[in-house]
Each structure stands twice: as structure tokens, then as C-alpha cells.
């Protein structure tokens, strides 16, 4: 069962499937209650008023790493998220991988993309940091905001859990990223 099938099946089990849509009379009651509330002031239940964030700022600016970090730092407060690409699984903006984020994965390795055929990518593993990926494996192409991750002939550092490759924590094998992988998995590889 692929993701689309799973989601379709879950939708069939949605307990609100038979519910009517919010009707006009209820909407008018909600608006009227809000207008009456203008006189009532604040309540203890209301979330803390916070600064308006990013109002009038471009989506691109809101999607910067700095904004993402700020968003992540808001605790128990409705946070503003840069509009994403929709309900798929491609992150709108990746945070830079860290030792902590890499340690979320049970498999990490360096590999060369030997062939790329459609969405199928064959990787030849050259170094294992964690897990047992095997000598070669075929994975799905990873979609990124700017295109696809794997290009034949290039080397990559890959962080994965089972068959899921993190687009945010995987990337071309650069010395900086390799050092991060080494640091993240040096304890586990030493076991």
C-alpha cells in the first residue's frame, strides 16, 4: 500500500465524513458573537499576544533559515509557517543538518550514484557511518525545492531510516557535511 492508498483509506475512516459543512446561520452567529466580544476585552484563555511576524514580508524572506529558526523557537504559540508546497512531503525549507538531526537516523552512508533511471537511483556505498545499507542499493530519487538530489556519477552523504532518505539531512558529499556525519555517528560506529 503506497502513501496515496494509505491516505485515501484514512480519509474513508474520517469520522467527519458524513458531517454537513458549517452552515451560513452558524457562521453568522460566530461573527455576531465576535462583534459582541469587542466589548468584553481579553480573556485568560487567550494565547499571549505576540508580535506580528513577517506581515508584508515576502514568502521567500519568510522561508529563510533565520525565520525558520525563529519559528521553531516559538513555544506553545501559534507560529507562522512559510507557505509550503502543499500536502506532499517535500519540505518548503530545510534546516541545515546538525549532529542532533543526523542522529535521528539509523542509517547513514556515503555513496556514489552509479545510475539514475527515472526515479530509480542506484547507489554504490563507499563508506558506512551507521546501519547496514549494503554494498549497493536502489533508492527513489529525492525531490528538492531546486530539483532532484541525485545525479549519476556524483557522491552523496545519505541519512535514512529504513527506506526513507531525508532530503534535509542528505546531500552532495562535501568535506563539511562529511565531518558532520563523522561527528554524529562516531560513537555508534565505534560500537
Amino acid at each position, binding site marked *: 500500500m503506497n502513501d496515496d492508498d494509505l491516505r485515501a483509506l484514512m480519509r474513508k475512516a474520517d469520522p467527519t465524513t458524513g458531517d454537513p459543512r458549517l452552515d451560513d446561520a452558524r457562521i453568522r452567529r460566530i461573527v455576531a458573537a465576535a462583534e459582541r466580544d469587542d466589548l468584553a476585552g481579553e480573556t485568560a484563555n487567550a494565547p499571549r499576544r505576540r508580535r506580528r511576524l513577517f506581515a508584508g514580508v515576502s514568502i521567500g524572506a519568510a522561508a529563510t533559515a533565520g525565520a525558520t529558526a525563529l519559528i521553531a523557537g516559538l513555544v506553545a504559540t501559534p507560529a*507562522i509557517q512559510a507557505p509550503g508546497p502543499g500536502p506532499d512531503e517535500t519540505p518548503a525549507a530545510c534546516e541545515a543538518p546538525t549532529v542532533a538531526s543526523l542522529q535521528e537516523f539509523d542509517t547513514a552512508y556515503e555513496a556514489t550514484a552509479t545510475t539514475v533511471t527515472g526515479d530509480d537511483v542506484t547507489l554504490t556505498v563507499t563508506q558506512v557511518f551507521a546501519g547496514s545499507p549494503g554494498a549497493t542499493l536502489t533508492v527513489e530519487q529525492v525531490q528538492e525545492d531546486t530539483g532532484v538530489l541525485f545525479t549519476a556519477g556524483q557522491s552523496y552523504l545519505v541519512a535514512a531510516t*529504513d527506506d526513507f532518505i531525508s532530503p534535509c539531512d542528505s546531500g552532495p558529499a562535501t568535506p563539511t557535511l562529511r565531518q558532520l556525519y563523522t561527528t554524529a555517528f562516531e560513537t555508534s560506529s565505534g560500537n
Partner: protein
Amino acid sequence: MLSTERSRAYESLVRTHGDAVLRFLRRRIDPQTADDVFSETMLIVWRRFDDLPEEPLPWLYVTARNCLRNAERSARRQWRVAERIITVDPPTDTVDPGPEEDPRADCLRAALARLSATDAEVLRLWAWEELGPPEIATVLDITTNAATIRLHRAKKKLRQEMEAPRRPTGTTTKGGER
């Protein structure tokens, strides 16, 4: 913003997103409490209307979720309706499966109920609220990376739960877990 202009903008928001917020609540609590929490949520939205982001839906879900938690705490304090708070299983009394329900739906509900609350919630946000990892991250106050990983793991666990043979009474299948 002028008050009439604000009211019109608010009404537009309620028309666009109110139904989604009410459904969000009805999927997590009994209908009567959901309606009450929905009213409270929308009042808070009105009070915070000037703070609304350009893409308000995740923010609305966070607000609804906070109100729901308040309702849960209140219910627990009063030693009542604890059984009405549904955090794992959807409220079956609101399910209207109809004659053509997919026979796998029951299996899915049971599997969903066996997942942890966190895994089940991630899946609900993904399938029922139709959110992607960035929006799930906002609602759950976690990073997008973490949301992506949690979603992936939750889907895997749900599939495993659905595929796992139900243990016959008195029989233990060693190594039955995949």
C-alpha cells in the same frame, strides 16, 4: 483596520476555514464538546485577528488544539466526561460509514487505535487535515525535519499494524512482528 472591515475579513476567514477547524475538533473529541471548543477557538481568533499569518490554517489548528487541551484539563478537573475526550480513537458515534464503506476501514481504525498518540496525531494531520510536514511541524511545534521523520515512521507503523495478523486467542506467534 476599521471595525466593519475587520468584521468582513473575519467573516471571510470563518467561511473559508471555519469548517476545517470544526472538523479538526470533531475528529478529536465528541461533537458537543467540539462545538463548544470551536466557539471558544473562533473568539480567540477574533481577538488575535490582527496577528493572523498569511497562511492561517496551521495557526488556526494550533489555537484549536490549545483550546482543546484547556477543555481536556477542565474536564479532568471536574471528574466528568473523561471518556468523551477521544485522543486515539475517532468518535464512532459520528461515523456514518454507509453501505459502501471500504472493508479495510475497520482494520485501519483498529490499527490507528493501537498506535501511540503522537503517531496517530501525525497521521490524522496528514490524512484528515491534509497537511504537509511544514504545516504539521507548525501544529505540533516541532521542526519540519522532525515532522517529516515522524510522519514517515508513523505511516510505517500503521502499515505494520494493519498487516500484522491478529493474534488468535491462546496462540502466540513468535517473530510475528515484521
